[in-house]
Structures are given as structure tokens and as C-alpha cells.
């Protein structure tokens, strides 16, 4: 028994350690982290500013909620309407456009619903809804999911509860794999698609791209210090200002994923 206690005390001693250095917390999305963008741009910023950025990658919905509760200093997400709404409600300040990528509609390589050739995403959704082919939704309140829901709304269709509408509740790569298994269609971001199509051996192809409505804007904003006294607004603003500066924009433009694909296009004003 004594020996047991000694072993335990030793383990406990190991667990006590300190965390120093200036750091801010950035709530962001899985798509940004999993693409490798942060691994590319954060070291550049950290070296220049001497501020370490801790990234918590969740869905856009969760990221905004985390920010509203004051559990982050800065947000880097992609659901412009939700962002602007939260800014209007006073939770965040200094929101800026940072970069964009675009959404594409992908489907089985035989394109069973004959979507290819359609120009407008809304029309494509209408066609899929009556084709009998499944549509796999993220169903997780992510930026991609928000975009998808707005497209259904524009198409005047209520997909929830329909037999052909599957809500995955998972990340983009997993949702794509489910769509592949089900021979269905899904809305994905080009970054995830390019990064995973070969690796996951997806028997799928892009059936619609280039519609302006599929524009995916990423924005950055700081948590309002009037709402949460403890946030590191000075450091957060340094990060925001760097992202939209010439240096930050160049770092984003520089980034290519490991397959050599350019995923994000800087467009800060």
C-alpha cells in the first residue's frame, strides 16, 4: 500500500508544470486547421510578433459560440452572415475579410442525377432533390452546412426528413466518404476535395463549380473586450492586423497543401 502511494505521488509530481510566454487563443474551423494552413502561416506571425497562437479547431457554429462565451481571443471562421450577425450583437469587433476558397458540388462519377452541365447551384440542388440519388449533408452547423442550407432555402426545398437526405454530423472528409459509399451528392469546399480525392480513392467528380453563390469567404474578428474583460485585445488585434497586412496576405497566397494545390486566395481590403 505504501509503495502504491509513493508511485502515485511521483506521478502527481510530474503533472505540475508551468506555462509562460505570451499566447492568444484563436477559435477556428477544422477546414483551416486540417488543410495545413495554420502550420504554414502561424510560424511566420509568431516569429515576427513574438505571440504564440493556440488554435482550437471546431465547427464554425461552435467557434462562434466559444467566442461569444469569451473562451477565445480571436476568431478565424467562414460563415460571413453569422459573423456579421454576431458583430451586430456586440460580441465581436474589427471583423475583416481575409481570404476565400470556393465550394463545389460533387457526385458519383457516373453522375446518376445528370447534374453536370447545370450552371446554377440552386438548379442543381433542385435536380438532385427529384433524382432519387442521396444527398449527404454535413448536418453539423459548420460553415459548409450553413451554405448548403441557404442553397436549399433558395431552391424552395425542405430537405430535412426526406428519405434521400442524409445528415452525417461529421467533418468534411468523412462526409465525402459517406457520399462516396452511398453514391450520393454533397457540397464540399475545394480545398478538402483536392486534398482528399486521390488519397481517399473517392469514385466521385465535381459536377458543378464556378457559380458565384459558392464563394466561401473567410473572416477574422476579435472578441469584444467590453463583453469579456480578460481577452487579450492588443495581441488579438496584432494578429488580425497581420492577417490583413501585405505580409499576412502573402503568407496565405504562398500556402500550398502537400499535394501542391493552392487552396486559399487572399482578398483582404
Amino acid at each position, binding site marked *: *500500500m505504501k*509503495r*502504491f502511494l509513493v508511485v*502515485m505521488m511521483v*506521478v*502527481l509530481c*510530474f*503533472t505540475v508544470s508551468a*506555462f509562460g510566454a505570451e499566447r492568444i*487563443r484563436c477559435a477556428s474551423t*477544422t477546414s483551416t*486547421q*486540417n488543410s495545413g494552413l495554420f502550420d504554414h502561416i502561424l510560424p511566420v506571425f509568431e516569429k515576427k510578433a513574438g505571440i504564440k497562437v*493556440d*488554435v*482550437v*479547431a471546431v465547427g464554425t457554429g461552435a467557434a462562434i459560440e466559444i467566442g461569444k*462565451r*469569451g*473562451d477565445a481571443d480571436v476568431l478565424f471562421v467562414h460563415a460571413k452572415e453569422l459573423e456579421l450577425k454576431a458583430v451586430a450583437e456586440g460580441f465581436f469587433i474589427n471583423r475583416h475579410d481575409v481570404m476565400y476558397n470556393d465550394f463545389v458540388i460533387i457526385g458519383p462519377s457516373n453522375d446518376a442525377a445528370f447534374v453536370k452541365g447545370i450552371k446554377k447551384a440552386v438548379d442543381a440542388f433542385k435536380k438532385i432533390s427529384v433524382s432519387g440519388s442521396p444527398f449527404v449533408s454535413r448536418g453539423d452547423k459548420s460553415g459548409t452546412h450553413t451554405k448548403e442550407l441557404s442553397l436549399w432555402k433558395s431552391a424552395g426545398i425542405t430537405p430535412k426528413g426526406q428519405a434521400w437526405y442524409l445528415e452525417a454530423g461529421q*467533418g468534411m*472528409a*468523412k462526409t465525402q466518404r459517406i457520399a462516396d459509399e452511398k453514391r450520393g451528392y454533397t457540397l464540399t469546399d475545394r480545398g478538402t476535395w483536392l*486534398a*482528399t480525392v486521390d*488519397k*481517399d480513392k473517392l469514385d466521385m467528380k465535381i459536377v458543378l463549380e464556378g457559380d458565384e453563390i459558392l464563394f466561401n469567404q473567410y473572416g477574422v474578428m476579435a472578441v469584444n473586450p467590453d463583453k*469579456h474583460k*480578460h481577452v487579450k485585445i492588443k495581441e488579438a488585434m496584432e494578429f488580425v492586423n497581420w492577417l490583413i497586412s501585405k505580409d499576412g496576405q502573402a503568407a496565405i497566397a504562398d500556402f500550398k497543401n502537400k499535394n501542391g494545390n493552392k487552396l486559399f486566395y487572399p482578398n483582404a481590403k
Partner: protein
Amino acid sequence: MEYIASGFYHALQLILKLDSELLGIIFLSLKVSGAALVLAALIGIPLGALLSLKKFPMRSAAVSLLNTFMGLPPVVVGLFLYLLLSRSGSLGFMSLLYTPYAMMIAQTVLSLPIVASLTYAAVSSVNPVIRMAARTLGANNYQTAVAIIREARMGIMAAVIAAFGRVIAEVGAILIVGGNIAGLTRVMTTAIAMETDKGNFELALALGIILLSLSLLINTALHLIQNNKDVRSQIEGD
């Protein structure tokens, strides 16, 4: 199948290379789960023993509750603790969210019912003759309890081992309260979940193999301690 073979190959490569990032992740996993286990044992063993040795009203209800808590869904525990530790939560002033400490708390909550409940079972199944013998030899309440708990040590060790299995493999709760922050709160299980999300199946599998190997090592050590005690007690004749 191809993935599994290359997963093993990849794992071997990772172990041979053993870069500082991987070492940090492994170390943090052991630190978080180890601390949680120590806390759970320090609270859970006395609690389980007390439940078994002390008669009080509603005891069987308490035991049922404890047994139910053995099945606590990690995500629910994670969410509950997130809301509690969040800056807008009642314990927000402690700034514990997204630190290893938050992860330790989460895993303590998850493993405590296992330690307590299995300790209760182990102590309850000690032969009643022991209690009577201790009493006859003039032991007071405390001495009797110690004698019974000593007798139950194999079962208590099993409780600790079961709890270790729960925490070292756990991902749902620590992902929510830890945030999987690189170099700060990223552990083996959250790294595996992330790499799976990225579609890096080989790397994820390799990390899984390393985690399992570590578990095997630690369980072997725990088993040795368990057996060693058993042998020693026979020689000492207690």
C-alpha cells in the same frame, strides 16, 4: 488491409524517429491520464471501501448511481465541464479551460466511478471471516477496515487497471475541454481523431498502434505489481 500493414510500418518508423513533437504528445497523454488515475484512486478507493463497510440509509441507491456513472458518455462530461470551466461559466475565473488541468479533471470524473464501484465490489466480496477474525483479535473499527481492504487489494488493483483503460483511450471529453491545441493540449487520442479527420489514415493508425503498445507496457507493469504483492503476502503470511 493495405492500410493496416502500412500502418504498422509507419508506426515502426515513427518510433525509430521519435521526434520531439510525438514525444511531447505521448508524454502529455501519460501525464493527463496518470494524474486523473491518481486522483480517481485517491478519492475512489476510500469511497468504494466506505460504501461497502459502512451501513447507511440509501446505500444501495448510492451504489446503483455509482454503477450508472461508470457508463458516463465522455462527450456529455466534456460538454458539462466546458460550460462549467468556460469564461462565462461558474468556474471561469480559474482559467482552466483548454489547459491540461481541464483534461485531468474530465478524466478524473470519468474514471472515479469505475475505481469506486469496482473497489466497492472487491471489498464487499472479502470473506466475512476476516472481519470476524479481526474483531476477535481485538481490532477496532479502523483496524478491521484496514484488514479487509488489504484482503481486497487484488480487486482494487483491477479497479485501477480498468480505470486506466478508460482514460488512456478516451477522446470525447478531453477534445472538448482541451481543444486539441498543438503543443499544449494535444494528446495521443485527440491527435488520432484529428489525423483521421484529415484523412491521414496511416499516420492515425500508426499513432493508435503506439498508444496500444504503451498501454500494453503499462498494464504489464501494473500486473507485475499486482502479482508481486500477492507473492509477498504469501511469504509474509498475512
